[in-house]
């Protein structure tokens, strides 16, 4: 008799505790999401109001009616105060897009070739080349920024898309990743190719590339984001307003007190700046996570 009651009570208590835990878990996650979503929410809201409302300090939490005006204005004319030069968001977005694509595609292309060479061939100086490439990991562009700027001036590559993208292709993250992956390709594949009489290039095209598809997709996401979010390098390199990228352009809109900031247009441009990379991450989430966690540099 008492045993039955005990069990039921225990089960109920356990259920309650689990319920409490679940609620707590949901609450904490919701709180986490809120903290991470808050800036973007306020930005979205800010982009739908006019300057005066925000300038007055009536920070709104609900959307206003200026969305269309702001977005159209920022897209075609740019914004950011009457004293900074206005570059249309459309131009900046295009520049960022080209830059990010060139960096992502360029890096993947040359890394595939180099990793392939280093893994599947035997030739003199093989390890020397590998270490030379590996060393580039040690020096992010921020550290070699001034000398790189001087090199670019010597090559007359300032204010060019080439100059903007090439130095960022020089580091070896992708090569290393591909190398790690290629090392896991079973020897039987290579043997089979040799038996079939296929040369190394056929092997590369028919075997290695298809196998690397997920890695390439993951790297594309990582590199596209990396390229899109570049700040210091474009800041130094670009003064031609037609080449301005959106991340740098956005921060230039905020005069350090230079003028009355047009916060609504700044927020609109921020939304523009956010959309492509966020879209890429969210849509390619699966490959992205796989790429990050399974190969870990």
């Amino acid at each position, binding site marked *: 008799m008492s045993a039955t009651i005990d069990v039921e009570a225990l089960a109920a208590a356990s259920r309650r505790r689990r319920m409490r835990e*679940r609620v707590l*878990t*949901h609450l*904490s*996650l919701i709180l*986490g*999401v809120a*903290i*991470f979503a*808050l*800036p973007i929410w*306020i*930005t979205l809201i*800010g982009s739908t109001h006019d300057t005066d409302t925000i300038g007055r*300090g009536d*920070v709104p939490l609900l959307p206003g009616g200026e969305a269309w005006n702001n977005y159209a204005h920022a897209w075609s004319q740019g914004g950011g105060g009457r004293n900074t030069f206005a570059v249309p968001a459309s131009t900046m977005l295009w520049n960022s897009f080209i830059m990010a694509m060139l960096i992502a595609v360029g890096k993947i292309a040359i890394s595939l*070739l*180099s990793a392939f060479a*280093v893994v*599947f*061939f035997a*030739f003199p100086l093989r390890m020397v080349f590998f270490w*030379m490439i590996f060393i580039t*990991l*040690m*020096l*992010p562009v*921020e*550290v*070699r*920024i*001034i*000398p*790189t700027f001087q*090199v670019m001036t010597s090559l007359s590559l300032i204010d060019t898309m080439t100059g903007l993208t090439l*130095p960022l*292709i020089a*580091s070896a993250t992708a*090569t290393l990743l591909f190398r790690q992956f290629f*090392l896991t390709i079973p*020897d039987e594949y290579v043997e089979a190719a*040799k038996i079939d009489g296929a040369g190394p290039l056929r092997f590369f095209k028919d075997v290695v590339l298809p196998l690397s598809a997920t890695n390439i997709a993951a790297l594309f996401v990582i590199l596209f984001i990396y390229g*899109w979010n570049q*700040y*210091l390098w474009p800041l130094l390199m670009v003064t031609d307003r037609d080449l301005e990228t959106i*991340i*740098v352009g*956005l*921060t230039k809109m905020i005069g350090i007190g230079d003028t009355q900031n047009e*916060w609504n247009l*700044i927020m609109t441009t*921020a939304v523009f700046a*956010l959309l492509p*990379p*966020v879209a890429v*991450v*969210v849509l390619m*989430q699966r490959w992205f*996570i796989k790429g990050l*966690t399974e190969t870990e540099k």
Partner: protein
Amino acid sequence: MRKKVIFRGAALPYLLLLPQMAVTLVFFFWPAGMAVWQSAQREDAFGLSTEFVWFENFTDLFHDPIYLNAAWNTVIFSTSVAALALGAALFLAVQADKQIRGAGLYKTLLIWPYAVAPALAAVLWLFIFHPSIGLVGRAFAAIGITWDFRVNGGQAMTMVIIAAAWKQVSYNFIFFLAGLQSIPASVLEAAAIDGARPMRRFWTVVFPLLSPTAFFLLVVNLVYAFFDTFGVIHALTRGGPGNATETLIYKVYVDGVQNLNFGSSAAQSVVLMIIVIGLTAIQFRYIERRVHY
């Protein structure tokens, strides 16, 4: 690591390597070499008169209280950012790992900040913390706290830390979640049967299994805080007020681009190079060992 079965080729491998080597030589070795060369010189802005000074630029750095201040700021900044980003991510990953409805949705919602540029994160947080127009900024004013990060160094540092850490949480979150999900259920069940409370279970069983991930993330977060955060600082505080938010990487920029002191800037770059090499080397040794689990 060497594959047993390989292709033989005379010219092909060199041709395959050519693009990367060309880019690496021109855009990496040349500037890096220049940095080392310039770090041993003192010259005027136009490069018309140069003086070879061996290590003088370096010794000047280590005697300069402002450089040491930047180094100290970097330590504070990096450890705070790493601690905050790792702690928050771990907590959220643990919550998301539990079998609850909507875990997938939470995951997506927490991952997207990875896509945000550090400089952009800074702008977003500026908008929130601005003394006159920010939600939080005005809230502070309303409850009587004098909040002005343009004048108060501590507040500036706090803002910069929050903006930088915020962005990094998603990256850490992904790894922690993957790490948690790779812990075999059997291990967890065994610990549960032993009767340990959830908190104890976590610290004695789960965390040790996560430690390789945590270590890897620690190094990554530190490197991120050292270098990738230039954008955050430049957009928010420009290193001010009064050098309060000037980190080593920011000082490289200021001394090079603003003060036109190329020798000192190059010397600082060399110091940073050495630090990065150290951190990356540690990371790689640890990862290589990890692979053998």
